[in-house]
């Protein structure tokens, strides 16, 4: 009786082990976490074409960009003595007012809820800018903004390529043009630390 129990436990253990080993093979086919599965899982249909999670992510990020970069640009208009920084701030204000209008139109058309406050990280950047004075302000200002624009730039490219939604496609094109302009005009301030951008240390 004891031996039978032992064999039973050993066999059960083997079955469970083999099952556990085989499970991932079975689940690979449509494993959650693969790009394809994620794309389908998060997709909803709209009359402008399918709307994926990365489409919605871009819409939200464009809105958030306006929410923190407009106050950042106004701060530079007041605090900076550099004509190049003020020129960059001018582009940020005009560019993000324009994009914000576009993104609100797109969000309204598709019924997407937009944030109305910058996120915690962006509020932290605004505080860093508030705390900095003189030349230090120009550097902090230009680098925080250049870094944020540089991070979103390839993400816009990816969405522009793979979106199946006509509204998001046009928004991605418009955002690409605006962000490249902002990157360029921020670099013209001469305050951007390219090593830090390349190393991702801002």
């Amino acid at each position: 009786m004891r031996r039978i129990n032992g064999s039973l436990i050993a066999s059960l253990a083997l079955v469970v082990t083999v099952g556990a080993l085989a499970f991932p093979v079975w689940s690979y086919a449509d494993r959650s976490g693969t790009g394809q599965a994620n794309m389908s899982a998060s997709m909803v249909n709209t009359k402008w074409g399918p709307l994926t999670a990365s489409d919605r992510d871009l819409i939200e990020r464009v809105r958030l960009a306006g929410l923190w970069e407009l106050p950042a640009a106004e701060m530079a208009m007041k605090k900076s003595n550099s004509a190049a920084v003020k020129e960059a701030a001018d582009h940020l204000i005009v560019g993000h007012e324009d994009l914000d209008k576009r993104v609100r139109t797109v969000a309204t058309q598709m019924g997407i809820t937009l944030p109305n406050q910058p996120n915690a990280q962006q509020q932290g950047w605004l505080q860093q800018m508030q705390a900095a004075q003189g030349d230090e302000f120009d550097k902090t200002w230009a680098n925080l903004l250049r870094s944020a624009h540089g991070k979103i730039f390839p993400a816009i490219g990816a969405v522009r390529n793979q979106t199946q939604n006509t509204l998001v496609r046009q928004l991605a094109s418009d955002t690409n043009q605006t962000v490249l302009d902002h990157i360029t005009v921020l670099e013209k301030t001469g305050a951007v630390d390219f090593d830090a951008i390349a190393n991702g240390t801002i």
Partner: protein
Amino acid sequence: MRRSKGSVLVALAIAGTLGALAYPVVYSYPNRNAAADAAAAALQGETVTTQWGPLTPADKDLIIRVRLAGLWELPAGQQALERATSPAMKEAANHLIVGHNDLDKRVRIIAAKLGVTLPNQPNADQQGWLDQMTAASDAEYPQVWAQLLRSAHGKIFPAIATVRNQTRNTLVRQLASDANQTVLDHITILEKTGAVDFEEIANGSVSGTASPSGPPPPVPGQLAPSAPAARPSTNPDVQSTPSPTTPGLIPTGRPDPEELNDDQGEPAVAGQ
């Protein structure tokens, strides 16, 4: 005896199972890290210093990819001028030829300055795409042509953006900005042919890190709360104009590059 043989088999099977489970932990993981480290080191190691700033392998890769784009897209554009079935397709072919002649000129000047050796033949993939276009029947030609070109432009587009962000080289920075304009123009004009299959593009480009959920999807029939305009709280005196132009048009006008000299290689297509 039969029973003890069974126990031996079970014991062996268990030992084998445990061994297989432990193998990746104790043996193969350190090697995996080593491979990643080696790849990172190779990227770091080849960075060279130039008077225009450091030139990384990623910078060189972009220079070569821009050259390669010209080498296959110019013949593809010329082929379509002859076989085009619609004015939109002719228009797209026209943009490809003008855009890649311009970019090719720029990339040859930059490569000569930076000492980067450029290829003079399309790569095997690109030759395969040209063969597919040539072999396509008249009925399927527009789809084959537009899809292959749109797919290639879509893949390089985020890569250009990454280099535009990261490069510390002033020549590469300008090339990336110029390539961004040209490639977005080509993507836009290829889509206007109406022959692009967006679902296939989407399925071919999803990455393993695609967000599983993202921000919440809209609820059908439910209005989203209205979002107030984000605008300056003061009334700053601003002069600039917004960057987006007419939908469907991407501004690609820019000053001509300086003249070529003998060091700058052969044009991608003679006589263009």
